[in-house]
């Protein structure tokens, strides 16, 4: 495959991906017109959505692509548990401190790994 062909391919792939993603959003708007928020369908769809989002989150943590995959699985899980502990340590939910805990621990691991 020559460079030019590859250049076209990237743009085509991007267009296809953009159209597909927007169509999903638009389908949501279309369907939402027929759904009432007190209905059983709404409750069921909420559960389905949360399950999907949960599956996606777990996938990003347990089976990541790229850089995160170089961190041992046990360590990724351990940092998540520690951050969750910070989060639920207050009934008001400490979102930013919990985010910082996880990020800084991951950063610390990265520094420790690269140091001789």
């Amino acid at each position: 495959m020559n460079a030019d062909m590859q250049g076209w391919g990237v743009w085509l792939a991007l267009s296809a991906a953009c159209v597909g993603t927007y169509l999903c959003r638009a389908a949501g708007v279309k369907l939402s017109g027929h759904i009432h928020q007190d209905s059983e369908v709404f409750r069921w769809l909420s559960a389905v959505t949360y399950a999907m989002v949960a599956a996606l989150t777990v996938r990003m943590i347990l089976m990541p692509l790229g850089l995160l995959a170089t961190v041992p699985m046990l360590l990724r899980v351990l940092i998540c548990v520690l951050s969750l502990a910070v989060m639920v340590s207050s009934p008001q939910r400490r979102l930013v401190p919990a985010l910082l805990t996880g990020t800084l621990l991951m950063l610390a691991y990265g520094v420790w790994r690269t140091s001789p």
Partner: protein
Amino acid sequence: MNRFANRREAFWHGIRDALGAPVLVLFAGMVGFGAMGRTHGFDAWMTGLTSLLMFALPGQVVMLEMFISGSSLLAIGFAVTLTSTRFVTMVVTLFPQLHRRDRNPLLYLWVHMLAMTAWAVSMREFPTISPKHRLSYFIGLALPCWLISPMGTVLGYFVAGWVPTAVTLGLVFINPLFFLLTFTDVKPWANRIAIGLGCLFGPVFYMFDADSSLLLTGLVAGTLAYFIDRRWLRPRPVEVQA
């Protein structure tokens, strides 16, 4: 219920809520994506446009990975659309909460700014906002999230290489961590069970077929959670004995 005096106040409050964890999370995730685009040899323009026009990080990553591994255009389009099916139900669970007057064709425009971050925050905040202010709050919240994304991506693209790996590592981790943390704020039991079951089933279905696993997990775990809640947990209406 009347947290805001008018729509303008709701909009600005949305902006204020965005300029914290949500913008930080998207920015970090997109910096990570930009760096990924650079290391895989993509064009800066194309990497940035992906964030502006697709604005769905998991789909973006899938697209990059599949393109590199030489998948066909049809397969890429199909796989990305499958990972984006979550938007259908995200919109369907969020927009019916808007005021009747706001549920017009303009929503086809606003819906593009919806991502998991703004959705998670809106689902948490909407019950405390009166319906007529919800759309303004949502726009205030989602607009900065969307605008920061291409900027983060392009920045990530250009700093990749000279930023220490440790920093990039911390940045790419913020995204999944944020979603994990927001789960602790979910109140309805059906949704809590759905999250638990989704975490269990997700990896299992992923082993069978990666592309369709999200949709499949959502349908199986979500439906199961819905029935568990309906059968055992929901307070039953008091039966009057004749």
